[in-house]
């Protein structure tokens, strides 16, 4: 069953040069494992395909129930060079929350995530 990340996580993003970072934080501690298993580096790279020009790096912060993603080549050069509305990557956070992950229904139920949360 597909579920959108906005149902299970919150996020904040920022910039370092031409790289945007997105910190993805589980809304409940017990949902961190879901993020860790399904929001892989590869899945995020596929999600942002066409929106960024570089690689994706992923770090795990189990202490904060969070993952940190670095999206390279995300900001049209970054800083003052960038012509983008979001030159500082402030809303790459919500762009990541658009992503859907495919999780077996049984697993969602175990985590208290019923069908109502499944992506429409």
């Amino acid at each position, binding site marked *: 069953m597909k579920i959108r990340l906005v149902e299970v996580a919150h996020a904040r993003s920022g910039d370092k040069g031409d790289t945007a970072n997105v910190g993805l934080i589980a809304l409940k501690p017990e949902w961190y494992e879901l993020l860790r298993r399904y929001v892989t580096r590869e899945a995020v790279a596929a999600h942002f395909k066409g929106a960024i020009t570089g690689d994706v790096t992923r770090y795990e912060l189990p202490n904060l129930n969070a993952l940190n993603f670095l999206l390279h080549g995300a900001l049209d050069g970054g800083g*003052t060079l960038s012509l983008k509305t979001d030159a500082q990557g402030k809303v790459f956070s919500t762009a990541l929350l658009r992503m859907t992950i495919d999780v077996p229904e049984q697993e969602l139920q175990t985590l208290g995530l019923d069908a109502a949360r499944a992506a429409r």
Partner: protein
Amino acid sequence: MKNVVRVASGQGFWGDSLDAPRQQVAGGQIDYLMLDYLAEVTMSILQKQKERDASMGYARDFVGAVESVLPAVLERGVRVIANAGGVNPPACATAVRALTSSSNSDGLRIAVVTGDDLLGRVDELIDSGHALTNMDTGEPLASIRDRVLSANAYVGSTPIVEGLAKGANVVITGRSTDTALTMAPLRHEFGWGAHDWDLLAAGIIAGHIIECGAQCSGGNCLYDWRSIPDLANVGYPIAEASPDGTFVITKHDGTGGRVSVPSVTEQLVYEMGNPHEYITPDVIADFTTIRLEDAGPDRVRVFGIKGRPATDKLKVSIAYSAGFKAVGTLVYSWPDALEKAQAADRILRERLDRLGLRFDHVMTEFVGASATHGPLAYADLHDLEPSLPEVQLRVGVRGGVRKDVERFTREIAPLVLNGPPSVTGFAGGRPKVEEIVAYWPALIDKAVVATKVEIV
């Protein structure tokens, strides 16, 4: 030694709320007021101001901020630490001093930290083998030497601690790290040593949490955002630190906003790189060791932090001139707002081509449709598109030839009469041509940079 030291944040960037510093001293007991004014490109803006007028080159808002908290500094012993000095900390101190002499206050001791400014030393440094290679691209600084506008090393907490030890109640620095402004008073008060890595890392992380002002106390907080109360009266954050390196993030009673585990977590991940090594001049902090705990309403306890020895390098923030840019916008209305904006974009680009203008890059965004999430929004857009009430066409160009960018700015308004229909939103006039000041991050040996602390 105090058991608890309260460091309050009153400014998250130059341009942040003018009232926050005064609210932080008026709202309750604090020991230190920390004000962060400098972003990556701020230094080059200040450098230009200094070139026009040798008494400028600092964050002028700071003078008003000191004025607004002066009684607390002189009567209650609140000490102010700010990187407001920009590229001219002595001039900043002079301006603050002028303010106080007119109000008859001699209890002010201002410490001025200098030595971070490397602009006058760039040739000497390159000649002596410091390539100041761009950390992102690997290019040596020599490739853009003639376009360098400012160059400043990020310095750590040590000179601020020295200023506090000399009895300063206002410390003005140039390009200190944002986090040092919070960590330095903790080092000073608790006598933390320069090799107490875990304690220094804790101070740095306290600094990281409060350096963006209200962004950790309910501002820009996505978690349960509708329920965050009274943002019009948002409370800026306070770190209540203990000698053992644990601290509580809180805010004054009676203020709006919210300090919670989610609000603090969002700020912790903001602008994060590799969480295992948050590198500062003082220490390498490990964000994967941070523990957060709900400690009551608007109180979050932070503990468990580990640090490692600092490197022998400092980061250098170099700004250089990198051409010109301009961004023009027009608004197209329903029906078929996006389609009209797309047609206008095609026409505009064809005209730019015919004029033979040279740009490094032309970028189009459709605000209201796909500007912020780009192609990720297309799937949702497909259903919404026919009903969009309006779409803003936003076209930006950048390049090295000023007159070509100027000419671009003349090509927007004509579209109102000679392009697709149902267009408005041009009242702002022609777009402005901006000189691009770009950022060049580099590293330099610590031994090369000597800071100086003077009481004035």
